[in-house]
């Protein structure tokens, strides 16, 4: 097997292991340098005689590279913790933060439960926007969490099953979540409610909330499979 073909095989096998291209290029560069050194050491050897498999098979090297690359990161060493436990813990925190942000924005606009001081025009505008803001507080944390965990999974070169497990968990959590917010008006106090549950049949919004993490996960898996993806890690 020619050196170039072997190096190309290493590149392909490393791609299959979802290793970042920049890392693969460095590895291939050093392997190529190793072979050159070997050639220079064995002066009598012709380039065509050189068997690059003396360094190991392409798949062996890719598996070793993937294993070592995963060991570099906490997420690679403890995928259960990072891609199963952490998403379950992260979602409530993100939801709480997004609902609190609505409360703070409402307060800043003058929607104070004790002393509402907004004009009728602002109040009616706010009430028009409110349903969308509430949906955003449900959906945005799930989207942010899915993107973050999928990106981490791709960077850590962990197996695809962790991405899928993480997305399914986020889809179940995201799909089951519902909340309602009412703004304080003169004579009435504002309220924030948050809960979980599935309606039968599920509403389009709930279906959308459920499908979104799965679609993002599929998209990230697709990006991670492309040899020239945007994930550059080191």
């Amino acid at each position, binding site marked *: 097997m020619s050196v170039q073909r072997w190096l190309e095989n290493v590149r392909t096998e490393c791609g299959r292991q979802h290793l970042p291209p920049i890392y693969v290029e460095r590895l291939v560069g050093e392997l190529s340098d190793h072979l050159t050194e070997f050639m220079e050491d064995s002066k009598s050897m012709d380039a065509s005689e050189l068997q690059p498999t003396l360094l190991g098979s392409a798949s062996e090297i890719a598996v070793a590279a993937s294993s070592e*690359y995963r060991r570099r990161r906490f997420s690679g060493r403890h995928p259960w913790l990072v891609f199963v436990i952490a998403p379950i813990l992260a979602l409530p925190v993100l939801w709480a933060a997004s609902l609190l942000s609505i409360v703070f924005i409402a307060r800043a606009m003058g929607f104070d439960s004790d002393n509402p001081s907004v004009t009728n025009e602002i109040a009616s505008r706010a009430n028009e926007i409110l349903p969308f803001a509430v949906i955003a507080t449900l959906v945005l944390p799930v989207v942010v969490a899915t993107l973050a965990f999928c990106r981490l999974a791709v960077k850590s070169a962990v197996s695809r099953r962790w991405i899928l497990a993480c997305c399914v968990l986020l889809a179940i959590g995201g799909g089951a979540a519902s909340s309602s917010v009412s703004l304080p008006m003169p004579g009435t106090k504002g309220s924030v409610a948050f809960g979980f549950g599935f309606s039968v049949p599920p509403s389009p919004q709930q279906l959308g909330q459920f499908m979104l993490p799965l679609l993002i996960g599929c998209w990230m898996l697709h990006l991670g499979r492309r040899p020239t993806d945007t994930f550059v890690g080191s």
Partner: protein
Amino acid sequence: MAERKSNPAFLNGVPEMLILQLLSRHSMYGYELVQAIKAASNDQLEFGEGCIYPILHRLEADGMLQATKELVSGRTRVIYRATKHGKARLTKSISNWRRIADAVNLSLDGGDHVGATLA
């Protein structure tokens, strides 16, 4: 040239220790390091030479090695050397290795003695 065979899986962690040991003495590049391991082990330790680079990269990412690039005959050569953190890890690894090796030797040599004690 025939394909190299790797040593058994129970040698996990040994290449790391040898790498740190050799690089704590001298800075070396990958090929030089592989030759040094072969020479130091009297050719008794063999592992897929290509598999040494992922280990070097991980040790570098963990802060145990420092890599610098050097231009040699028109190509870039990556030179590795052990850091303070790497040397500390090496001391710990050697101590663990000696403890385990002593325990294994004791078990292998002292089997009869244990049998007699139990009887």
